[in-house]
């Protein structure tokens, strides 16, 4: 039968028609795919009906399979599993689905499963699963940690992974890959139709392949593109005075006055700020200069209490708010129809993030998204010009999938061991069917098993190591306390040690980093959720506060990772610089002419095929500045590499600073810089071993180990904000890193830390590409008498410094002392 003649299709399209809607071509295509039990990826922007493309497909399939009694057939078991990265998204989608089901007239139920689901509801779900379950990756794994958890998926027909572009390349994405492999492994031959839903990224084919990999090579993933072009208007906010010696973040707040007229001319506005700390400041600043906005402005970031955030999201939808200052916390998800304007403060660091944020405005099909770019320092105007260019040419970043995440694998094995247990040989095959673990060797698998079964190296004489028990070849965790501990640990999002913030009178405000609060005394005033709060006392992992009327307060700096410029944007940026001088074609470049001229006079403006290097001295010592424009992260690795290679020629200690445009090696002794062969120093020869040597001395692997140790179960965190209940089991990742390095250097999690440094932190592949590009470039060495405009922000921004030394520790300390005594 032709698909459009099936009863399911007819019923659904009739229902759409009753709402004066017509199915889009991509929806029809997806529906047909689902009814044929195919799998694939749907590429559609938010607000284009992507939810319907899978959800209605599952309904059509059900109707077609039960044409007689589809209206009355109840208790069908779980039919559609909907994985979503955000809890808030789940609620919104569930509401829409329930409404549709009611109108169409089915007996289906919709359930939500996440960290907030009540115990009562959980028990109900276990007795009888709803036909549709909306779930987060973490809760999905929690279900697998239940006894007979896999039984809940017995009747599953369709699995949707929403916002796959956001999960791909993260450990949560790996959790999804593993969950799919488990569901399919339990149901051979496979009968689940798997659908990813993704916004546009550079590597859509790969994104589809990763998701469908456990289905086997026989299945060619289908990619369905929604042919919906979104119009985007980018407007730069030009500062009144373009400083010639800019430094990051300096300008931002001064520009706040410029946003007021934009807010006033718009229906409702989202202001995206890159960090939580700055968003607090912006919120206060806007209220100071535009008090008339009181009551119509709200703040939204990851440390604000969940209920308050949900209220804010709801208030945007119902137009109670005119403006919301937010962070990446609002990047994803729910549709806010009233929003017609977005303001991006500071560099978005990548084209796709910028587009995603732009897309939060003008949500309805056919509407134009309007985004204002507000630079936090004048050089960022260059980025605005580059972003415009990128959007024009459709140059969007890829998301690289992760491979061989042993921490996630160890956690997953324990998850299954807590549930029904696993047979190692069978699980090995299943795990290997995922994209992430396709290259898992037998040896590595044995290391993983060894790690969880006997806690590392061979058992010694007196050892109480205890975790897994083997029963007829089945690996199980039987001790209740260990099982409980593990269930609390499931997940791959590792947060800093956080404390709850509460009013003395009761009322929960949000979370704050222990690191920040430990530096405050009773009576100090700080800002959270837009309020000034006086610290009264810290007890039981809770910060008790009262309202304060103090004018001055301290804004917490949350230690979220700093975002780095993408290779894609870096490339366009280099190109933009090439033609910057005397180029008045865009408003941004016109306004930067003075700064560019100073850069040109004092030093040089690098062309696309040039690598600019500056060398100068100041009272801070000697500064070697290199400008590859590859983003902070690549610069971190490249600077360590260069420092290491120079220090092999003569003993010298550098301290390193960087931003997205370049990096600085700062030393207290002078270098004969003309004698250095920079091309040789930045060659790809021996890259791997040199990188490994250069990072050995740095903090990178140690920092990576933090998350790995938590995910891999070496650090028991408990629930965020809750007091550590396990007595005498406290340790920190730095200490663990040290003892593993000294006493079990081949530990599988330690190895992973170094691998992650190489692949993610150093971005080895990207770095190699960058070095190859540099080999083809001309090195331009300048010795300016003063700091150039390009160097200034790097010099000022000394926060992210690493040390790398080839000098003996004692000598180094002595030198520091001499300096201190002067």
């Amino acid at each position: 039968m032709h698909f459009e003649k099936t009863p399911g299709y007819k019923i659904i399209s009739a229902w759409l028609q009753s709402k004066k809607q017509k199915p889009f071509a991509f929806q029809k295509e997806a529906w047909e795919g689902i009814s044929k039990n195919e799998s694939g990826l749907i590429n559609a922007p938010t607000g284009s009906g992507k939810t319907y493309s899978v959800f209605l497909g599952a309904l059509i399939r059900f109707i077609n399979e039960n044409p007689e009694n589809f209206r009355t057939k109840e208790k069908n078991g779980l039919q559609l599993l909907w994985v979503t990265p955000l809890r808030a998204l789940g609620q919104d989608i569930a509401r829409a689905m329930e409404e549709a089901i009611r109108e169409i007239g089915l007996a289906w139920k919709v359930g939500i499963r996440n960290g907030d689901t009540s115990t009562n509801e959980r028990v109900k779900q276990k007795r009888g699963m709803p036909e549709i379950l909306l779930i987060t990756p973490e809760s999905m794994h929690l279900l697998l940690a239940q006894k007979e958890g896999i039984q809940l998926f017995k009747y599953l027909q369709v699995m949707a992974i929403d916002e796959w572009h956001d999960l791909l390349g993260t450990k949560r994405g790996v959790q999804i890959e593993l969950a799919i492999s488990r569901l399919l492994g339990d149901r051979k031959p496979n009968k689940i139709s798997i659908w990813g839903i993704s916004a546009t990224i550079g590597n859509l084919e790969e994104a589809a392949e990763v998701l469908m990999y456990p289905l086997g090579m026989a299945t060619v993933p289908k990619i369905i593109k929604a042919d919906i072009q979104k119009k985007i208007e980018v407007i730069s906010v030009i500062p009144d005075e373009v400083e010639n010696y800019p430094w990051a973040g300096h300008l931002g707040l001064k520009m706040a006055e410029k946003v007021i007229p934009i807010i006033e001319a718009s229906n409702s506005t989202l202001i995206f700020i890159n960090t939580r700390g700055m968003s607090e400041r912006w919120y206060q600043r806007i209220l100071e200069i535009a008090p008339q906005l009181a009551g119509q402005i709200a703040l939204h970031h990851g440390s604000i209490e969940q209920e308050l955030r949900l209220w804010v999201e709801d208030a945007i939808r119902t137009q109670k708010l005119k403006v919301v200052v937010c962070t990446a916390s609002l990047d994803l998800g729910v549709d806010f129809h009233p929003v017609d304007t977005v303001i991006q403060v500071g560099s978005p660091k990548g084209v796709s993030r910028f587009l995603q944020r732009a897309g939060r405005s003008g949500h309805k099909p056919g509407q134009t998204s309007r985004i204002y770019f507000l630079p936090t320092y004048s050089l960022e105007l260059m980025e605005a010009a580059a972003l415009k260019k990128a959007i024009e040419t459709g140059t969007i970043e890829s998301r690289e999938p992760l491979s061989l995440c042993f921490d996630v694998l160890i956690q997953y094995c324990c998850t299954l061991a807590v549930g029904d247990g696993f047979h190692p040989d069978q699980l090995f095959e299943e795990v290997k069917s995922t994209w992430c673990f396709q290259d898992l060797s037998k040896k590595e698998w044995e290391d993983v098993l060894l790690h969880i079964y006997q806690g590392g190296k061979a058992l010694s004489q007196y050892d109480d190591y205890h975790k897994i028990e083997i029963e007829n070849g089945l690996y199980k965790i039987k001790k209740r306390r260990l099982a409980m501990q593990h269930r609390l640990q499931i997940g791959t999002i590792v947060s800093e040690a956080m404390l709850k913030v509460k009013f003395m009178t009761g009322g929960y405000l949000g979370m704050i980093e222990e690191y920040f609060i430990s530096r405050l005394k009773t009576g100090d005033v700080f800002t959270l959720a837009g309020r000034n709060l006086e610290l009264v006392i810290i007890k039981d992992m809770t910060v008790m506060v009262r309202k304060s009327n103090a004018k001055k307060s301290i804004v917490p700096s949350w230690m979220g990772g700093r975002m780095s410029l993408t290779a894609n944007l870096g490339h366009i940026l280099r190109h933009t610089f090439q033609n910057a001088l005397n180029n008045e074609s865009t408003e941004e470049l016109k306004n930067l002419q003075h700064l560019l001229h100073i850069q040109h006079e004092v030093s040089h403006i690098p062309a696309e095929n040039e690598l600019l290097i500056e060398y100068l001295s100041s009272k801070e010592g000697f500064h070697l500045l290199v400008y590859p424009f590859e983003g902070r992260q690549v610069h971190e690795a490249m600077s360590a590499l260069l420092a290491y290679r120079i220090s092999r020629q003569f003993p010298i200690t550098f301290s390193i600073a960087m931003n997205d445009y370049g990096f600085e090696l700062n030393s207290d002794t002078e270098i004969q810089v003309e004698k250095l062969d920079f091309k040789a120093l930045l060659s790809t020869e021996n890259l791997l071993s040199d990188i490994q040597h250069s990072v050995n001395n740095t903090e990178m692997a140690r920092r990576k180990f933090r998350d790995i140790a938590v995910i891999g179960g070496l650090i028991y965190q408990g629930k965020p904000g809750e007091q550590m209940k396990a007595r005498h089991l406290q340790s920190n990742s730095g200490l663990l890193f040290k003892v593993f390095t000294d006493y079990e250097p081949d530990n599988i999690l330690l190895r992973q830390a170094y691998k992650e440094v190489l692949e993610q932190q150093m971005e080895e592949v990207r770095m190699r590409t960058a070095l190859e590009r540099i080999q083809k470039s001309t090195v331009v060495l300048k010795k300016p008498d003063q700091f150039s405009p390009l160097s200034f922000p790097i010099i000022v921004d000394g926060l992210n410094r690493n040390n790398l030394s080839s000098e003996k520790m004692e000598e180094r300390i002595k030198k520091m002392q001499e300096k201190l005594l002067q």
Partner: protein
Amino acid sequence: MNEIHFEIALQNLILSPLKVAYWTEQKALLLADLHLGKSGHFRKHGIGIPVEIIHADLDRLSQAIKKYQPEKLLIIGDFCHSRANSELEYFTEWRDLNPGLEIILVRGNHDILSDSLYSKWNIKVFDGIYETEGLTFSHDPINWAKHFNYVLSGHLHPGVKITGAGRQKITLPCFAFGKNQGVLPAFSIFTGLHPIKKEKTGQYFAISTDTVIQLL
């Protein structure tokens, strides 16, 4: 290996990079925060910490005994980490090899083992403050009063931050001596560092691999 001779309250101490101090007048080896059995405690709870840690700590203790030939060993608290586990058998073996040594423990917050174990190992245990003729010992730093001698403590796991030109910084374990009280570094390798604030009147000795360095 480079150690430092240091005089405080008319008593002579040798500060050793082995993270012990040798008290010459009393022929006593001083140390704090051995946290014996910590790795075993973690392992018992399903966290696979390397098993070598306890051997490394006990080996270093033997090394210090061999070098200074003390008559007694004075542990200023946190001798053992938590409740008993099998790993402590290694200490029983160690004790059998060093039977003549007098061991004194000033109880710390982690010392929760049953008294029978201490008597099995022939360890004298003191609660709170332990006073001798020359010095006073307390696991936690105390509210110093005039009738006390100079007080030596542990508990803090002190680390000292050193900064210098080129914005370099590094934190090292240290001995810290104030006007009336001093703190010893944590002995065990499986302990973290707690950065302390340097005071003008204080004297600080950082430990860097096999050297003790006085900070000026």
